[in-house]
């Protein structure tokens, strides 16, 4: 085995690190536009799914342009903020601001029959990492029209079930206001929601912490829109 001097080892390491760094940054820069495009398409697919429109990565752009006819930003006292792009708002950074300064996006979907739905983004904590989603409301700003949830790393088969239709579909038709003014959100109940309860759905067996996190996410994100909902319902 050859003996290498310390100078050689240092020089070798420095050259190796520089070459590798150059290669990796070059690759990252070249591929960035494609990756951003994918993330944008996924977000559009998610918003579409919350208004019950299925899309594939290929047709998501067109369907989004067709069905999501308007988007705007409100604050937590229901005032519209001008000059903001709802689509590029990152909920994670908004939620770290004080409640009064948050910019809250609303996406308006116009369905085949001409009726409107109002989509609000959600973000919260699951068991292993962030969970997020989109909930769409009927024009009464009370009844849920559709819901979509996603997660970063919840346990497959347990917490990760929040992305499944069997979990998402029961949200349809639930209402978030009791006696039309009191905000109650939608509860995710362990052991199952009682039949006909308009403010609760079944939790996931074995996914208690994810279910609890999802319930907290619904409550904390939707309450921000409370004033907007109450003053704009039809």
């Amino acid at each position, binding site marked *: *085995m*050859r003996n*290498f001097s310390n100078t*050689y*080892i240092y020089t*070798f*390491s420095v050259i*190796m*690190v520089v070459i*590798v760094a150059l*290669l*990796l940054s070059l*690759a*990252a820069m070249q*591929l960035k536009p*494609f*990756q951003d495009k*994918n*993330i944008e*398409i*996924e977000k559009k697919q998610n918003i579409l799914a919350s208004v019950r429109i299925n899309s594939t*990565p290929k047709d998501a752009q067109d369907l989004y342009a067709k069905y999501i006819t308007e988007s705007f930003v409100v604050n937590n006292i229901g005032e519209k903020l001008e000059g903001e792009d709802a689509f590029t708002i990152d909920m994670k950074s908004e939620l770290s601001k004080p409640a009064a300064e948050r910019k809250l996006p609303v996406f308006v979907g116009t369905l085949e029959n001409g009726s409107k739905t109002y989509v609000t983004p959600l973000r919260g904590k699951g068991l292993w990492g962030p969970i997020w989603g989109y909930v769409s409301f009927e024009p009464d700003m009370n009844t849920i029209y559709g819901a979509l949830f996603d997660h*970063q*790393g919840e346990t*497959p*088969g347990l917490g990760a079930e929040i992305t499944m239709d069997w979990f998402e579909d029961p949200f349809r038709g639930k209402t978030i206001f009791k006696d039309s003014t009191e905000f109650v959100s939608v509860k995710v109940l362990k052991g199952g929601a009682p039949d006909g309860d308009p403010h609760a759905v079944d939790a996931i067996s074995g996914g208690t912490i994810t279910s609890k996190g999802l319930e907290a996410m619904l409550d904390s994100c939707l309450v921000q829109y409370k004033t907007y909902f109450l003053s704009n319902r039809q």
Partner: protein
Amino acid sequence: MSSNKNSKLLSNPFNLENPVTVQILGICSALAVTVKLKPAIVMGLSVIVVTAFSNLVISWMRNSIPPRIRIIVQLVIVASMVILVDQVLRAFVYDVSKQLSVYVGLIITNCIIMGRLEAFAMGNKPWPSLIDGIGNGIGYAMILIVVAFIRELFGSGTLLGYKIIPQAFFDAGYVNNGMMIMPTMALILVGVIIWIQRSYFKQLNEKE
């Protein structure tokens, strides 16, 4: 190097020196990504690319790598390969990259790669090393695909997302086996494969 020897390098890891069932390397990812066939195939391909090229690069550099820092050098090469693979997946097969999530990053720690670098690439010429890398990558991918095939078929009733088990079966009371979706079942399946392989190829059995 005779081509006979090279073809042995390629085909030995398929069976008698299979990285998963004989060398027992790379089990963790074999459990994690085999619920569905598609991520298993992509993971297999990614590992083939990474083992092949890291073997090639390390073997090509082997005489100039100072032995005292060789593990660090290997890690740097493997890590950069993996980051490249991850970036490419994210750019061109986004949905698969989402499913693989952390496991792509974990290729870095996949024992197959470091094992082959230390055991083979550090002491052999680039061409045989490349073949050895491809062979071991394929050996790993084969097991992944077999396990994923069984798990997806019986766990979800589909293959590559297409429905295989006809609706009539479900109507007649057939249900998907929820156990198949759990990682435990992958371990049991790998165990069964090892059992079958060992009872067929007696030379694999340890001497009493």
